């Protein structure tokens, strides 16, 4: 995770386009200015960043399902539950599945765990639109390369 750049996903572990699921890993850093304020003397990963982590993991799945032709934008967060604290240095696993593919929107269910223990989960809705400009698409493609986006999963999905 590079919290200051809002890059929360480190690695795609598994992406199954056919089953519409993805598993990613995210390493919470040991140190960050965020922890200085949240909270002084008791650093915790903020819940909103955990929701964003689930959203980004969902986003990579949706980009794969849309074959890099559209960009998903987070539109709604429902049933978000922060079950146990996430501390600096924890290795998170994020599992996402598609609940519903509508016309121009998709609903996912995401879950974060660490060492097999549930940390949080949420139901997320995304609107998907054509990439608003080539810069964003280029950025997403570069990012995909960095986190091990399996392009073959799209081709053979």
């Amino acid at each position, binding site marked *: 995770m590079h919290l200051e750049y809002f890059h929360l996903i480190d690695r795609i572990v598994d992406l199954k386009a056919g089953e519409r699921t993805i598993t990613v890993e995210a390493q919470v850093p040991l140190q960050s200015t965020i922890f200085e304020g949240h909270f002084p003397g008791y650093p915790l990963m903020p819940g909103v960043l955990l929701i964003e982590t689930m959203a980004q993991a969902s986003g990579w799945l949706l980009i794969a399902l849309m074959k890099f032709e559209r960009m998903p934008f987070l539109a*709604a967060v429902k049933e978000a539950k922060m079950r146990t604290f996430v501390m600096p240095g924890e290795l998170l696993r994020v599992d996402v599945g598609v609940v519903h593919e509508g016309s121009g*929107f998709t609903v996912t269910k995401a879950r974060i765990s660490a060492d097999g223990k549930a940390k949080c989960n949420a139901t997320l809705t995304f609107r998907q639109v054509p990439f608003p400009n080539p810069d964003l698409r280029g950025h997403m493609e570069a990012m995909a390369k960095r986190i091990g986006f399996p392009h073959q999963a799209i081709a053979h999905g």
Partner: protein
Amino acid sequence: MAHAAPGAIELKAALRYTGTRLCTVGWAFAGQRAHVLRKICIYLQCIKGLVMSSTFDQVANIIAETCDIPRDTITPESHAIDDLGIDSLDFLDIAFAIDKAFGIKLPLEKWTQEVNDGKATTEQYFVLKNLSARIDELVAAKGA
């Protein structure tokens, strides 16, 4: 109208057995067959009407629940956007609930495109009686 839904369900169930009933009645009352058939025709018309209104009731209930709008203010003539003030984000929730409830996929993107291109009006898709009719068409197309 809250009491209409269970009636519609009973009649829908009866519709499934109409074939059998028609045969049985025909054998038992051979002389009155025409009369019985007429009655069945009227009966089927009633069922059609109830099934259609039931689509509207389901849609209205979904809207009331999703958008926190009092159910009694939602009528078949209500325009989802202009009268009920539903925005596009709330409509995603409504579309999700309708897709799930009816096992269809509301073609929102196609409709939006048609409205933007001036090929359709929002009334055609977002006045609730018209939306209900579109849903019935999509359900029928799925079963065909």
